[in-house]
């Protein structure tokens, strides 16, 4: 099976803060459809930098190949095609953010509908099925502010999967919920992503909980070279 995501020889260096320079090196990284990978590592190890790049929101300094759903984003970056990157995001990526990242001015239904509209794949049946699976059918016509934190994260999962993306990215999606709720939400995320055949990449500082939810752990290897903190991500 072709990988949903394949990156080779990619590097991103960042800032010269008090902690000196930081570099994230990715010799090779691939995720197959239906897989659930949890990137772990202490804070400052580059989890967010990696997720930003995977979200096509941060341009790597060098990238030999940066294939998202068989489109090489490295070429789009080279040509500065911001709107082509936006279209690629709209068509192939789903996100679950720390606080849900729902738009406050849209109802939950409209929030979940948004990626479908942006991808041009309106599918009310899919929306209804996801809402049912995630137990938020009764919340669809409320604004996000009227929902509990746990309900909001479920809505965020529904939104991330609504347009059947090939890849789902999740950045500490359980950081702000109750621990027991966190287990439920992570399990739901893994199950629904697998059911829709999406490759799931999670950034977390909590490997135990991720493994229990069914993720394959992939720790960032960290080290130092002179003033530079180096993180390496490698998976064949």
């Amino acid at each position, binding site marked *: 099976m072709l990988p949903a995501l394949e990156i080779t020889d990619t590097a991103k260096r960042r800032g010269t803060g008090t902690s000196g320079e930081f570099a994230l090196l990715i010799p090779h990284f691939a995720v197959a459809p239906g897989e659930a990978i949890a990137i772990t590592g202490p804070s400052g190890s580059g989890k*967010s930098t990696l*997720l*930003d790049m995977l*979200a*096509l*929101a*941060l341009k790597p300094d060098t990238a030999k190949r940066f294939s998202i759903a068989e489109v090489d984003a490295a070429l789009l970056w080279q040509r500065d095609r*911001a*709107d082509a990157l*936006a*279209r*690629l*995001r*709209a*068509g192939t*990526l789903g*996100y679950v*953010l*720390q*606080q849900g*990242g729902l*738009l*406050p*001015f*849209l109802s939950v239904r*409209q929030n979940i509908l*948004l*990626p479908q*509209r*942006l*991808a041009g794949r309106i599918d009310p049946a899919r929306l209804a099925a996801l809402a049912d699976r995630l137990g938020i059918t009764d919340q669809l016509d409320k*604004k996000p502010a009227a929902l509990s934190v746990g309900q909001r994260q479920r809505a965020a999962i529904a939104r991330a999967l609504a347009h059947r993306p090939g890849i789902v990215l999740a*950045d500490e999606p359980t950081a702000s919920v109750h621990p027991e709720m966190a287990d439920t939400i992570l399990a739901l995320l893994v199950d629904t992503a697998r059911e829709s055949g999406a490759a799931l990449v999670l950034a977390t500082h909590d490997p135990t909980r991720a493994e229990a939810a069914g993720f394959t752990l992939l720790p960032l290897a960290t080290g130092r070279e002179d003033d530079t903190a180096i993180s390496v991500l490698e998976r064949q």
Partner: protein
Amino acid sequence: MRLPLSLALADLRHERGLALTAAIACAAVLAPLIVLFGLKEGVIAGLRADLIQNPRAREILNTQNRAFDAAFFAAEAARPEIAFIVPRTRTLSGIGNIEIPGRPGETQRAELLGTAPGDPLLRGVQQPDGMGVVLSSALAVRLGVSAPVDLSLRIVRIVDGRRETMVLPVRALATAPPAAFGREGLFLSLPLLLLAEDFQDGLIGPDDTLPAIAHEARQYAGFRLYARRLEDVVTLDADYRRRNIEISTRAEEIAGLIGLDRNLGLLFTTIAALGGAGYLVSLGLSLWANVARKRRDLALLRLSGLSAAGLAAFPVAQAAVTAGAGSLLAAALALAVAWFVNQLPFGARAEEYPVCLILPEHLAVAAGATLAGAMLAALFAGLRAAAVQPAEGIRDA
């Protein structure tokens, strides 16, 4: 483009309180500007109408008895600056006594004024013809009559120490408006005036009637003329003085009023321009601040794959709705204020010309300028929004 528009509207609906505040803020600045402009229009239109509609402002009279022949009048009547010219008789002979039939002995002196069709003083009044005359309003009041009424006009001359009177049965057809002539006066057709003059000159007897006898090369002592435009009074004034014809005009006053009109226009334009510019800047800044406030939502939209143009359209659409609502509100407010101002007693002119004159085209221009300015300002804000990086959406602020 439909998706960003519907998102922008959804956001406005979500924050309707804030959107309403923005529209009210817009109206609060725009409404006084509209009222100010309405006042400028009303005051200047009133000033102009007053001067243009009052023919006395354009009147030119010669002040010394001279001898002008028919050729002079033909030449002057042909000049483009002159709207109307009519001969006058000698100042001393242009007097008659009016008597109401049935009340002999009670006579009233009146100045006799020759007139002809097209006389601006008698606009809208029945034209004197034959024995038909028109009363000045002061004369009608003094006589205590209202037209139409039959009167007798008595012309007196002294011949060899004897007093002779010519009695002309005239019919007052109408009364001239008060602005036409301030004193007791009687407007006569030119032949009737000349008949009276011929009698005083001893050329005809007391029993002669119209038509007056024809004179070869009749000479007239003076003229009464009206310039076509206010500005022409100033030109004609200078021209007659150069030709040594003594005249009285309101040229100085008119030159002053024309200057005042120009200065008022400049003053109002300056205030409106400053106010308008300040208004557009404040509108632009508030839209800019709005984009800063919504940066995270915009970044989320960018992250979700909305195009740069879509992001830019977001604040532009909101600005258009806000400015449109603000303009409607401002128009309603301004019309209400104008109505109120026009109820205030600002002198006699108030009933005729509104002090504050707001026309639909003024409102259209105000709304158009507001929409254009707001959308232009929002476009800059939108370009800023389009530059929002999708990565900003990932991290929660």
